[in-house]
């Protein structure tokens, strides 16, 4: 089955194992986690579409979507994502500082 190798569909068992580590391995939670993964990717794809439309760059869309595709085939993104969203002060400060940096670039340099 070639298709299952690139999808996240084969990863169900791995996903379940990962979630059991945190004590939330029942089927409902795993389903919810998978939904989260799909929403994350889906919104990334949509954002890529939007960006490519705003900047009128077809190439950006293609490159972005293929990067997302590679991301999908390698690993579940969502656990990484959860780590980044933890409430450890240092990680929060890291993201805030990245945010202010990106914001200042967006407002000042890209006008």
């Amino acid at each position: 089955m070639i298709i299952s190798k690139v999808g996240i569909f084969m990863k169900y068992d791995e996903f379940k194992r990962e979630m059991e580590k945190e004590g939330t391995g029942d089927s409902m939670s795993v389903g919810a986690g998978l939904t989260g993964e799909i929403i994350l990717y889906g919104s990334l794809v949509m954002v890529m579409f939007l960006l490519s439309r705003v900047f009128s760059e077809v190439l950006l869309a293609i490159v972005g979507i293929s990067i997302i595709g590679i991301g999908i085939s390698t690993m579940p993104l969502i656990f990484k994502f959860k780590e980044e969203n933890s409430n450890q002060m240092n990680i929060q400060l890291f993201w805030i500082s990245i945010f202010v940096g990106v914001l200042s670039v967006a407002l000042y340099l890209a006008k």
Partner: protein
Amino acid sequence: MVKKMDNFLPLIVVFPLIMSIIFSYIYKSKIVRILTFLMALILVVLPFFGTYGTYFFGDHAIALGSTSLTSGIAYVLNPAKNVMVFTLMLIGSLILISATGEKKLNGIFTSLMLMGLASVSAIIMAEDIFNLYVFYEIATITQAGLVIASGTENAYKAAFRYLLIGTMAGSLLLLGIALLLSATGTLNIEDMRNFLANNSATPAIYGGLLMLIIGLGYGGGLPPFHTIKADMYSRARPFVASMLQTYSKFVLIALMIVILKLFGGLPYFNITRGVLIALSIGGMVFGTVMALLQNDYKKLLAYHTISQGGYVAAGLAIGTPLGIVAGIFHGINHAIYKSALFLGAHIVSKAKSSNMAKLGGLLPFMPFVAFMILCAKLATIGIPPLNGFQSKLLLIDAAMKANIPELAIIMILVSIGTFVYMMKAFYLIFLKPCSEEQIEEYKNIKISKYSVFSLAILTVLCILLGIYPDIVVDRIYPFAKDIGINWALNK
């Protein structure tokens, strides 16, 4: 002698402040409970004291002569702001009523609640940007205090984080205000808007805009500040959390309106609008994805608040009149159904735990409460005929009319996620089969009548606004038309 004016608008802010001092002074006394109840009743009528129009504090109106600027502090009340203040006060009153059922109610808690209500209504009405900053800081300290009130170690930590980052964001916001003051020479929002529209941009103005957005992100819980906010909501008592989320929703709306008012029509605002839309998409997606992973009911609700905040921000960030109406309307709806959900969580948490894996089978013990919680959940997912449906429909309509179908698709995707975790929570709490011992435990649960009363009123409001959305929308529309601009992404 000046001609006497009969506008009691300041009482909306001042009366809760006076009562809050009295409450903090008599905090141990036995009459606190009765007074709190009375205060809750008074709060509902307070928003009707003001008459529409601009109110000048200390009779310092628009100065004639050398400058035609407003010299003092001005507040503006219009139907849209009145609806927001009324919603805020109503929810505050219902929370105070359900707090009277608490065993350890004390005056300090009531006092903080009242200060928060006064300061957030001041933020909504203020037409003066420094006054807005002062009340923004009061709201920050109040929220930290309300979290600390629950007294656990985690609550202390959440409040500490919130204060540390809040002080930074507040200082940067003030820096922005200082930059704008230096560039425009005024603090009044209307005058500032006129100045900005007629003069070209300087680096100081860009800096001011940047700092205002940082303040907005913090006050409204947009990413990357969402983890701090979610932490706060989940660590506070659930019925306190319903108040906290109401505060930050209205702070978000008020600050967004200020930014739109100041910069909305300017040519260099396009990139900022993109940034704001990106932030709101981030809020929606991050909130939902994190909520899908949670196992604790309170945390789930906390992240759900973040994702709905993203919706509100998205509507306002689009900036067309329809988008602004949709954003404000969704904010009001969200405040209502989310308070209902948190109150439901408060009732459920009487069953010892908020960990969903340990709950289950609660339906036979509180069928009426379960029904109301289900109503609120359906409202948040966006199922007709409840209020969430109406505002989400408006939001998606606004996104389509601005020619951003991608945003609409993301909204629908996020709604699906909301459906999944809300139904998961409902199943795990109310429907899942449970053991005999648990049933024995459940028999001892005493449900506070006050909480159920508040929950019932909120549910009725959900249905009412779902069937007659025009009650709110008609009041917001003229205001939105005033500050919104029509545009569409034509590429």
